[in-house]
């Protein structure tokens, strides 16, 4: 803008220095006028919000979308939580029963594969039922016990069962394949289900943030301490998942273990499809937010079709008036987010948000197409005004130029100079008068006067000698009355002569004759008359 201002200043300076054509100058005034009006119009439009209409519309669309997604997600997670709490209660009862039969506490289960097998056998149907009834892609139960306490890392290894669906696809499969991710393989063989390719006997609870702490606490009710873990990579697989961790609480308040369901990244992707709208593809995101960053690497992303959203990136948030900007390393997204409460007791005070993200590029293209129409419209209007001002300036200047041209070619007569503009006419007249005076002052005759004189002198030749004699008296300054005395002729003779002289010289009165004589004398041409 500053640059442009400088350009205009330079232009102005240049225009001042040079004598600018009237038309161009007029054009310049017109154009500056147009630009000022344009600026005013644009200012008015932006003040009235015509230009931010898209942003506003975008905000409304995304907000509706966000609210819908949030409602759906809240319902979904609440449902899962309810089912997991139920699972927890049932498992608690089952485990308690087994322990009572044996007359031992949970700690005594350590290093007892037989007992663990029995407990897992008892737990399996509940986990399986939960997997089948809940809207999730995996269910699990971790027991606060391990098969072999003598092993390295046994302090974070816990026995348990983890069942997952393996053939996820867009629709909820009618007969999903259940695979056995964690647990005693004999149960899998007994139930005729496949072992996961990366099966392991026990859970590594260090992989699940917050799980170890949960096992160490003491609670009255499972609902007091459930939480969703951040998204974790399932070791050695390409999948990642979020686990709902619900404590299995014994009647004495000890924690028997943790159970719950999982929502895998792929499952979430299928469950929350993107929506294609006028502004592009909108992606649903459930992720924690920390230090003004949306941690996609720890949350779940819906279907990303139509975008390059990468689940491993963390997005830097720039809050905006109508929408926020979310910056990935090489892509920009825009959208909105809202805080959602999904856990009862958050680990590390994680704040979860639901967000709707769209690629900024699509939005830019969308708004650009609208802006383009604006600009084209403005450009056309501008060109029309430019042409109009050109036409007006031309029309205004044309008669002036025309008169000037005639002036230059010397075709001036009092009438032809008329330009239709009083000032110009006055100027022309003034110039004319001045030119005339100048010529007279310099002794120069206006060309027609000279002609007149020539003609007059020419006519003098037709006078007779007698008449010339009379004329000479006049030239010598005598009055008519003096003539009879001087020439010894009667006044009648004089009059008769006068009549002849006037006729021949083409004058009507003695005054006129005397004017000629006077003028000729002034012009030093009186000799020619004698």
């Amino acid at each position, binding site marked *: 803008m500053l*640059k*442009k201002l400088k*350009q*205009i200043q*330079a*232009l102005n300076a240049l*225009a001042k220095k*040079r004598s600018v*054509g009237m038309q161009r100058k007029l054009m310049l005034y017109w*154009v500056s006028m147009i630009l000022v009006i344009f600026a005013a119009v644009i200012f008015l439009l932006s003040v009235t919000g015509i230009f931010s209409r898209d942003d506003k519309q975008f905000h409304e669309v995304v907000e509706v979308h966000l609210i819908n997604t949030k409602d759906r997600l809240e319902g979904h997670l609440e449902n899962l939580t309810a089912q997991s709490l139920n699972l927890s209660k049932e498992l608690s009862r089952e485990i308690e029963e087994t322990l009572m039969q044996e007359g031992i506490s949970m700690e005594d289960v350590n290093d007892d*594969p037989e007992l663990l097998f029995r407990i897992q056998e008892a737990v399996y149907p509940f986990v399986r039922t939960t997997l089948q009834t809940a809207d999730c892609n995996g269910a699990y139960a971790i027991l606060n016990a*391990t*098969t*072999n306490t003598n*092993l390295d890392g*046994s302090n974070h290894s816990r*026995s348990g069962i983890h069942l997952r669906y*393996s*053939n*996820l*696809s*867009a*629709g909820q*499969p*009618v007969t999903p*394949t259940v*695979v056995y991710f964690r647990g*005693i*393989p*004999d149960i*899998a*063989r007994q139930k005729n289900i*496949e*072992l*996961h*390719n*990366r*099966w*392991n*006997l*026990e859970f590594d609870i260090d992989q699940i943030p917050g799980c170890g702490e949960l096992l160490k606490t003491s609670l009255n009710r499972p609902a007091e301490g459930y939480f969703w873990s951040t998204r974790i990579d399932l070791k*050695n*697989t*390409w999948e990642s998942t979020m686990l709902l961790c619900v404590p299995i609480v014994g009647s004495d308040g000890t924690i028997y273990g943790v159970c719950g369901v999982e929502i895998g990244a792929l499952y979430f992707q*299928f469950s929350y499809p993107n929506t294609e709208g006028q502004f592009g*593809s909108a992606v649903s995101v459930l992720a924690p937010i920390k230090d003004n960053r949306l941690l996609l690497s720890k949350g779940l992303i819906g279907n*990303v*079709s*139509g*975008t*390059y959203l990468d689940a491993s990136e963390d997005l830097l948030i720039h809050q905006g008036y109508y929408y926020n900007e979310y910056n990935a390393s090489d892509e920009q997204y825009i959208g909105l987010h809202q805080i959602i409460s999904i856990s009862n007791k958050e680990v590390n005070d994680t704040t979860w948000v639901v967000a709707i993200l769209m690629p900024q*590029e699509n939005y*830019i*293209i969308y708004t*650009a197409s609208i*802006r*383009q129409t604006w*600009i084209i419209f403005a*450009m056309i209007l*501008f060109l029309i005004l430019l042409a109009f001002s050109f036409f007006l300036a031309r029309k205004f200047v044309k008669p002036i130029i025309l008169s000037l041209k005639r002036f230059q070619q010397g075709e001036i007569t009092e009438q032809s100079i008329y330009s239709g503009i009083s000032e110009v006419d006055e100027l022309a007249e003034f110039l004319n008068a001045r030119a005339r005076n100048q010529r007279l002052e310099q002794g120069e005759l206006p060309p027609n006067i000279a002609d007149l004189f020539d003609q007059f002198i020419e006519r003098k030749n037709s006078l007779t000698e007698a008449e010339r004699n009379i004329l000479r008296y006049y030239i010598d300054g005598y009055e008519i009355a003096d003539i009879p005395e001087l020439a010894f002729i009667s006044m009648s003779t004089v009059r008769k002569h006068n009549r002849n002289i006037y006729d021949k010289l083409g004058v009507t009165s003695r005054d006129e004759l005397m004017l000629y004589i006077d003028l000729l004398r002034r012009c030093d041409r009186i000799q020619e008359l004698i």
Partner: protein
Amino acid sequence: MKKIRIIFMITVISFFCAGCSNISKNDEAPITITIWHVYGGQVDSPLNDLIDQFNQTVGKEKHINVQVTSVSNTNTIHELVLASANKEPGAPELPDIFISYPKTVLALPDDSILIDYKDYFSDDELSAFIPVFLEEGIVNGRLVVLPVAKSTEIMFVNKTIFDRFSQSTGVTMDDLNTWEGLYEAAEIYAEWTDAQTPDVFGDAKAMFVHDYYFNYFQVGVESTQGNFFDGNTLAFDPAFEKTWELLARAAIKGGIWLKGGYATESLRTGDSIVSVASSASVLYYSDVVTYPDNTSEDITIVSRPCPVFEEGEKMVMQRGAGFCAVKSTPEKEQASITFLKWLVEPKHNVEFVTKAGYMPVTKEAFENELPEAIKELKSVKYSSLYQAYMDTQRNYKFYVPPQLDSYLDIEMAFEDNVRTQLELGRRYYLANNKASIDKIISDRFDEFKEMMEQ
């Protein structure tokens, strides 16, 4: 005066340019194509890595985004494809690209929903492929299955435990070269493991597991001058009986793993130590065995060529499915083809197959890229696999199963029945206090035959 005009024009133009600058960047939204494949199952998928690579490079350039929507096995995909092609309620929508054997295409109600690759690949491009691989993908005269990676059956051995077994019994790795030798070793292994816990009766451990007994029988019968198929049914000729007898004896004595699941599972839990499976399953073999007491042992897996019959021909099953592309919009079809062409470029193809345990599909990849790539392989599991590949390729004849409509049904019934009958045999054998084994073998065979002929 001219200067003023120029400056004026520049000013006006710069006004407009300021407004237009964003328009010039007129990118399109990416075309997303979906894919179902089998490479990787539940572990880190080498194809997914390659797809990421594609999306980040060529995909970004050409606005194509390939999305994996299912990684599973061919049978599951077969079911899903048929369900969605038949528009069964609850069936998912067909992806743009899926992995399939010709058998899936044959079972489709209408195979014209698939792209004929001849429409998209020039003759030059097609001639770069190894001809046998292409031929397998031609169904009803149309090239609908594009080979991307081919495999064969390979024997995997848990060398760590086998060496231990070998030291105490004298059975060597070379004994595993023939089926006869292998089954004998399996019987010895069963006795050896049974003897380790004398107080527990019949807790022998199986040495061997075959991924597809159906394949074992098919190749076995064909390699010993028999006929496995008789039209659309099984022939059950004498060669079959001999193949049965050998397997059944070892199985009933406890040397063969008969429970369900893939061969990799029992090797993972130490329940078996030798397997014959698709070379591609190398990806799923873990280098750790975890025992029921949660103790783990690091092991070495080595690959060897598939065993053969002493009197038979050296023959092995040719495996490996290909990609089918589903017809849709021209843009999507073109995007699918762009991805597939990228994937079969020798460089990417070899990068993919060596990670997944397959063979590349183009001549150039086989001749130039593969040997270089093999040199780079660090893991014994993989280097021995490619050693075995070369060995197999040099000495074996590849067996390609016939294209039968009923192939898959027969295969599934066969697999179930073999395992059930042999398991029953084992139980009778133990119940009979390890007596009258020959009778059990022939009884089970008759039963099996009856089940299959139903």
